[in-house]
């Protein structure tokens, strides 16, 4: 009999402690030792997470801070789902770092924080009540900002500060709501369908709704929703590429997870349905979808373009959530996974390009496909996925999103939603594919004389290819995943799916 409770604790405590331990270890002459240590820790954590996927339930009360504030970890389906995505992406991006970090300073610090953030993310996924989640949400911000400012250039430090202050602003907005939830909820534990105390709430409906709205808006800062998205395009590009990949693929999902928890596990969809919160969220997410795509389209620096793309894609997820129906939620959750893999792969490709050629701008990438075919093939596959071409993961998630919107029956949005998604998909094609096209077909005036193929390191190419394959697999064989997601939506909406 495996004690799942212990594993649950270990899954976040182990990487955390091993990261802290890495600080304590003296700088090694051979960077391989550091990396071996990190790699081993990553794999062990990954294995722990995989074991947890098969656990039925696990619940640990770590400590009681004070009466009413317990630090509780409880494994539920949503948490498992999140932890699964996290560990895949984190390990792969971690392996990518091995080669990439060669040309950065302070490697040890990077890997230490990388491990710590992994632990914190696991904790976030496993958090069993609002306060625990809030705590780990804060820790996530605090432990991930050193990744952003890693190269300590002025620009990165400023970006990191921007990241910090936006995140804190959001977190405190959420905290404001949280305080009120203490009064108007039966308990702060996450229970599918919500825990609002109808009796306590009667007479204070507006206050409660405003508080829920503030919590959602607060957490949506991490998810880069308009109008508090400005930190994202600043912070993601300045980090080292694997860190950008992890930030853009996973950390932002922390915000999404928090919103999911608030909407479906604290407030409950029935409370929010039809209120201003739903309309606000729908409107803002659609605005962000469109705006993010437009900004990405206009952006010339590849990593920034990808960051804007993240802004846009995350709001797909939020849009699906805001629909408050099973199909929309399924689409969101699918897109969460698909986007995590795809965006990670995209940033890693960008990192590989920067590492090998030093090019950062899109217009410098002519003929890149000839030089690094493996990387650009991976890039192209995931790009198609993000655009939503069947049979990739992006297609299936967008399909669900669109059908969710159409079946929601919300006046205006049920049609406006799919249209905006479609336009955004076109824009996505417009900003992602030029790299492929110019890369493989540089045109007649390309200087073939000086052309030579660059050999990309295995550690770099492998994660990109694996992620690309994963993104396609989601699209081709979605049944396993949708079934799993079905159990989540089933819990929430009390329907078999």
């Amino acid at each position, binding site marked *: 009999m495996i004690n799942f409770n212990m594993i649950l604790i270990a899954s976040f405590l182990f990487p955390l402690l091993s990261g802290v331990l890495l600080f304590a270890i003296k700088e090694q002459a051979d960077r391989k030792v550091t990396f071996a240590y990190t790699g081993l820790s990553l794999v062990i954590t990954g294995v722990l997470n995989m074991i947890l996927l098969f656990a039925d339930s696990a619940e640990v009360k770590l*400590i*009681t*801070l*004070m*009466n009413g*504030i317990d630090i509780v970890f409880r494994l539920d389906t949503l948490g498992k789902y999140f932890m699964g995505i996290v560990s895949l992406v984190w390990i792969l991006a971690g392996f990518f770092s091995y080669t990439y970090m060669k040309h950065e*300073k302070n490697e040890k610090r990077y890997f230490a924080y990388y491990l710590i953030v992994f632990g914190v993310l696991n904790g976030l996924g496993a958090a069993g009540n609002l*306060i625990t989640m*809030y*705590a780990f949400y*804060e*820790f996530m911000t*605090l432990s991930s900002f*050193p990744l952003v*400012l890693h*190269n*300590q*250039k*002025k620009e990165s*430090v400023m970006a*990191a*500060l921007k990241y*910090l*202050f936006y995140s*804190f*602003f959001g977190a*405190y*907005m959420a*905290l*404001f709501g949280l*305080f*009120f939830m*203490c*009064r108007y909820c039966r308990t702060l534990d996450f229970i599918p369908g919500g825990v609002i105390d109808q009796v306590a709430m009667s007479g204070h409906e507006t*206050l409660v709704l405003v508080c829920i709205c503030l919590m959602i808006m607060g957490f949506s800062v991490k998810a880069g929703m308009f109008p508090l998205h400005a930190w994202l395009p600043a912070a993601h590009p300045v980090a080292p590429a694997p860190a950008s990949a992890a930030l853009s693929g996973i950390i932002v999902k922390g915000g999404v997870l928090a919103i999911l928890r608030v909407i479906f596990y604290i407030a409950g969809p029935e409370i929010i349905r039809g209120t201003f919160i739903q309309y606000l969220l729908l409107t803002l997410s659609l605005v962000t979808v469109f705006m993010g795509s437009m900004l990405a389209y206009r952006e010339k620096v590849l990593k920034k373009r990808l960051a804007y793309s993240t802004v846009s894609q995350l709001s797909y997820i939020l849009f699906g959530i805001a629909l408050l129906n099973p199909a929309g939620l399924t689409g969101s959750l699918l897109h969460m996974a698909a986007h995590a893999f795809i965006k990670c792969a995209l940033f890693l490709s960008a990192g590989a390009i920067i590492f090998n050629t030093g090019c950062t701008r899109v217009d410098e990438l002519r003929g890149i496909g000839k030089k690094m075919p493996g990387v650009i093939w991976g890039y192209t596959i995931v790009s198609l996925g993000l655009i939503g071409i069947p049979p990739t993961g992006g297609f299936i998630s967008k399909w669900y999103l669109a059908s969710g919107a159409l079946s929601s029956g919300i006046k205006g949005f049920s049609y406006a939603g799919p249209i905006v998604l479609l336009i955004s998909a076109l824009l996505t094609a417009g900003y992602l594919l030029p790299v492929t096209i110019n890369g493989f077909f540089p045109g007649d005036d390309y200087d073939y004389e000086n052309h030579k193929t660059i050999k990309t390191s295995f550690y770099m190419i492998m994660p990109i290819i694996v992620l690309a394959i994963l993104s396609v697999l989601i699209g081709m064989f979605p049944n396993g995943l949708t079934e799993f997601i079905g159990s989540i939506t089933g819990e929430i909406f009390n329907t078999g799916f």
Partner: protein
Amino acid sequence: MIIYLLPITVLFPILASVLIPVVPIKSRRGITWFIEAIVIVNSILVWYLLWGSPDQSFTLFKFTGNLSVTFHIDGMATVFAGLVSFLWPLATFYSFEYMKHEEHERVFFMFYTMTYGVTLGIAMSSNIFSMYFFYELLTIVTTPLVIHTLKKEAVDAARKYIYYSMGGAAFAFIGMVFIILYGTTADFTYGGVLAGGTFARNINVLYLIYVFSFMGFGVKAAIWPVCGWLPKAGVAPTPVTALLHAVAVVKSGAFAVMRLTYYCFGADLLRGSWAQYTVMAFSIFTIVYGCSMAVKERHLKRRLAYSTVSNLSYILFGVTIMTPLGLVGALAHLVAHAFMKITSFFCAGAIMYKTGRNYVYELDGFGRKMPKTFAIFTVSAFALMGVPGLAGFISKYNLAIAAVYSDNVLAYIGVGALLCSAILTAIYMFTIIIRAFFPRDDFDYETIKDVEDPNYIMILPLTIFVIVIFILGLHPQPLLDMFVKIAVGNL
């Protein structure tokens, strides 16, 4: 017999400190041991006293018919006296190292130790007159500490300090006379002494007098618009800024406001009145004002002082909620802030002592050179921001919950102010931390190669404080249980 410890703990440091300048001990080491012995002995006496917590009161002397200086131990007294007696020996220990390069050491320590007794006097006063008496005395004995360096700015700061404090006392005086005249009893009584009293006149007069005396005692608790003295007083030696202007003096103000609100006027009498809204509005404004000024300020100690301004108003905000929960929150923040702020001040002091640098922009790269100091500083900064798991989160949580349950819209806004202040705290603290740990990539560590951590005399108190911050953050329940008992009048 334990009853006689009441006056002894107050008078012993005051009388013994007079010996410090004249005691015929030549070596610096000897005199430091002498001072530390006084302080530790007194702290032990205080703990013994609090442990026994005698029921009777002890009247030291009578001024006039119903004005007497009387001591008594109740829950509030236990909290404040316990806090002070815990911090004082450690802070004194720290000062031995810090004061090495200052002049007139003995005079400094004389007043420093004297303040200990006076602060205990405030803590253990059993009626408003005794409290007022020690409150005035506190101003007088702490002024020489502010003026210590005798530089022009120190003299200016001391003047400002004394004008503000005396002015505050003048307004507090009105409230005191009112309570003495119309209270049913002279002693502090939970729930107030006015209910059923003889004041049958216009209730607005009562409210006005409450506002006056709140603002009066609020001067020491640095409420806007009378907070200007606190940042200025930062010119004093760090042990003074850290212990007095983050704990003893300013907390005396907050403590006095608690006594005034809950034990004299009575929270029930004031709840829902315009007086409550007025004082609450002031404290909410101060919360935001202090933080904003801290963000603007470049001088490290002054920045921390402005942060104190803001945090003190957290306490006052808790008081002005005027529910038992509010008092719990206020007491929790009183204790938590004491540890957090003394820690950050002592870190600032260590930096000044080792390098003489005062301004935030001079701290580039210090994190690597003074790792212990800055690790501790970071913990205190996180605690001040309210990161869960540290002391600050617990106290803010209690304050906010009190506000949430108060059904008072202004208090809801106050919660917003708390969080607004938290983000500002993040800004002014993180700009320091990032500078120290992550200087620009072209920063040359050679320029600060002589910078190092201070010795154990400074690190030891800091370590103890950090441990307390963690304990308060992770296992505060016993303390909170006690606060709850106090707040419902059972202790």
